[in-house]
């Protein structure tokens, strides 16, 4: 999932784009949340079980899992109580070229299944637990459960035409929401202005939320958006393999030196780094072509043709295109299928229907459902006349252009010697 090592690379190379903020500071914000990721998180985390039994998912009377519904219900209420307005974005169909990644995931599942069987035989509970978690799958039913719950709660749901992160990022770029809440670093590659991570309250809300700022990230890395996308592809995304032997440091250095993947490939020492075949399909084709005496394809010419919709094209051997896979990935990041200008509405919750759904169908404790619904109603009432924020009236003063940027110190820590660059009047200009 996501972009390999991007978070770490950003922390090292562009630390100013990452901020830890208290949950409170998100008050009044609209946030698009990657629902698919949340479902997985809940199905893995919300479990019960003793020390002698492998932890099991919560289930209703029919034995269907309900962990995800429980998780969505309580977490959404938590968001609402903090004055946050969540929008949940569900995945649509996966893009065609993700199939490689999906096959890999399937293989992992099969492996886990085998190991689970082995662990059961050996009676190793810890191992059983671990493998059972790997087997968790969010299918259509789970998605629909959550959608139904959210609808009854009056929370807007967006069905992404394709990937949820892309859709959420588009909403964010379009100003319809303030930030995207996901763990997936992909969102930054999609150009989402503000990314929020760790919105899980795993540690009873004491943990701060990690806020990442796209603009500061590419400024900090000193890259353009296109270069940033290429960097992410080199690091390793869901859509294609990456070049073996290129780690985060090298990827960044190459992008800085050559500017784009095409140039890197031209200058790359192929003996040292193995480039996957589908990155350079033309070379392979060219070889075959020689044998078959077919017309040669020119890389550049072919690239210009990428305008045609090739996501529909069959990915199998019959493919006629010779567009390198990284170009397809790049296109996915830049021109993902999304819908915008949605009418996002937060409505009142339907108490009766919601109670019925949770108590009768999901088998939740009626008392707890009641008290949670009361919390939800209270939060919704408070949000009918929402508190506005200071920054919607007063804009930050232009910063001192990085004149002073010592490592962030935490409360009570020692102040770093302030370098003397702060010219007179440079701080806090008085109006």
């Amino acid at each position, binding site marked *: 999932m996501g972009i390999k090592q991007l978070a770490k690379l950003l922390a090292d190379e562009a630390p100013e784009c990452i*901020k830890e903020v*208290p949950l*409170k*500071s998100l*008050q*009044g914000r*609209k946030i698009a949340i990657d629902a698919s990721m949340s479902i997985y998180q809940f199905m893995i985390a919300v479990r019960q079980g003793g020390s002698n039994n492998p932890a099991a998912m919560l289930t209703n009377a029919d034995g269907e899992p309900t962990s995800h519904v429980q998780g969505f219900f309580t977490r959404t209420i938590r968001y609402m109580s903090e*004055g946050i*307005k969540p929008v949940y974005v569900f995945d649509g169909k996966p893009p065609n070229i993700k199939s490689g990644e999906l096959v890999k995931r399937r293989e992992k599942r099969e492996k886990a299944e085998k190991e689970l069987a082995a662990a059961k035989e050996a009676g190793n509970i810890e191992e059983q637990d671990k493998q059972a978690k790997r087997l968790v799958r969010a299918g259509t039913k789970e998605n629909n459960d959550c959608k139904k719950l959210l609808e009854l709660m009056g929370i807007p749901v967006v069905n992404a035409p394709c990937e949820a992160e892309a859709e959420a990022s588009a909403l964010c770029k379009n100003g319809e929401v303030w930030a995207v809440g996901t763990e997936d670093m992909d969102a930054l590659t999609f150009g989402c202005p503000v990314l929020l991570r760790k919105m899980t309250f795993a540690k009873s809300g004491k943990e701060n939320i990690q806020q990442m700022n796209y603009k500061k990230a590419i400024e900090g890395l000193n890259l353009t958006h296109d270069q940033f996308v290429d960097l992410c592809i080199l690091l390793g995304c869901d859509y294609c393999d990456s070049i073996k032997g290129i780690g985060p440091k090298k990827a960044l250095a190459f992008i800085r030196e050559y500017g784009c993947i095409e140039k890197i490939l031209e200058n790359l020492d192929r003996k040292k780094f193995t480039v996957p075949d589908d990155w350079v399909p033309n070379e392979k084709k060219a070889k075959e072509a020689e044998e078959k005496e077919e017309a040669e394809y020119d890389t550049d010419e072919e690239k210009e043709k990428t305008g045609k919709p090739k996501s529909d094209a069959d990915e199998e051997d019959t493919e006629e295109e010779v567009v390198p896979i990284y170009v397809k990935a790049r296109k996915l990041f830049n021109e993902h299928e999304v819908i915008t200008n949605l009418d*996002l*509405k*937060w409505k009142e919750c339907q108490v009766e229907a919601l109670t019925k759904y949770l108590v009768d169908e999901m088998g939740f404790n009626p008392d707890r459902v009641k008290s949670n619904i009361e919390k939800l109603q209270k939060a919704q009432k408070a*949000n*009918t*006349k*929402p*508190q*506005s*924020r*200071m*920054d*919607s*009236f*007063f*804009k*930050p*003063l232009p*910063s001192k252009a990085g004149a002073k940027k*010592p490592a*962030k*110190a*935490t*409360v*009570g*820590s*020692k*102040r*770093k*010697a*302030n370098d*003397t660059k*702060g*010219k*007179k*009047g*440079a*701080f*806090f*200009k*008085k*109006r």
Partner: protein
Amino acid sequence: MFEARLTQGKIFKQLIEALKDLVQDANIDCSEDELSIQAMDSSHVSLVQVNLQAGGFDHFRCDRTISLGFNSTNMSKILKCAGNDDVITLKAEDTADALTLMFESPGQDRIADFELKLMDIDAEPLGIPDTEYQCTIRMPSGEFQRIIRDLQVLGDTCVISCTKEGVRFSVSGDLGTGNVLLRNNAAEKEEDQVIIEMEEPVELTFALRYLNFFTKATSLGGSVILSMSPEVPVVVEYPIEEFGHIKYYLAPKIDDDA
């Protein structure tokens, strides 16, 4: 080098008390001619702004602009060690990682000094434009404090509306409703006066919780000035005589546009 000596040390004590409940960390920004603080609460709903003119101190020296980041709770703890009549002196080197606070008793027979560790605060100062407000209301600060305290009994949201009739503070909650109306009042003593200047009527809704935090500044001055215009933050200003002011800005609650 920064050094500021204040005979009426109480003022600085009261200032820190007036903001410690609202903001956790803040910068004291010192320049040649003033000492200022600007900070927001953690929800970014309100903002406090303090200005003290250099002329108001007995002695004020600031060689170069300097920001002193402090934790308000810790600062308050240290200031608790100062008597109300003490003379307070603040001192910091240009690259210091601590602020020295010296407390001298009026008879000069007891001198205490404390050092508060400073920190780097990642603050984004906001530019606050000078604007004309549609309504300005000057009233005794004690009266304002009482109104806010009384209304809090009934609810957590208060509507302040300023009309020809006067200024009305209203609240409604589960218990019931409450209204306090103040009219223009030209009392003899300036501090008791209620003076309302109004171009157009204004009505705004605010969270009482924050207004209550603001009234912690009541002891700093006899009067408070509220300035309001439609759909912008209210300004609650406590002037500190011949010295400066502490101003609070609070974003209103606005009907949902979505």
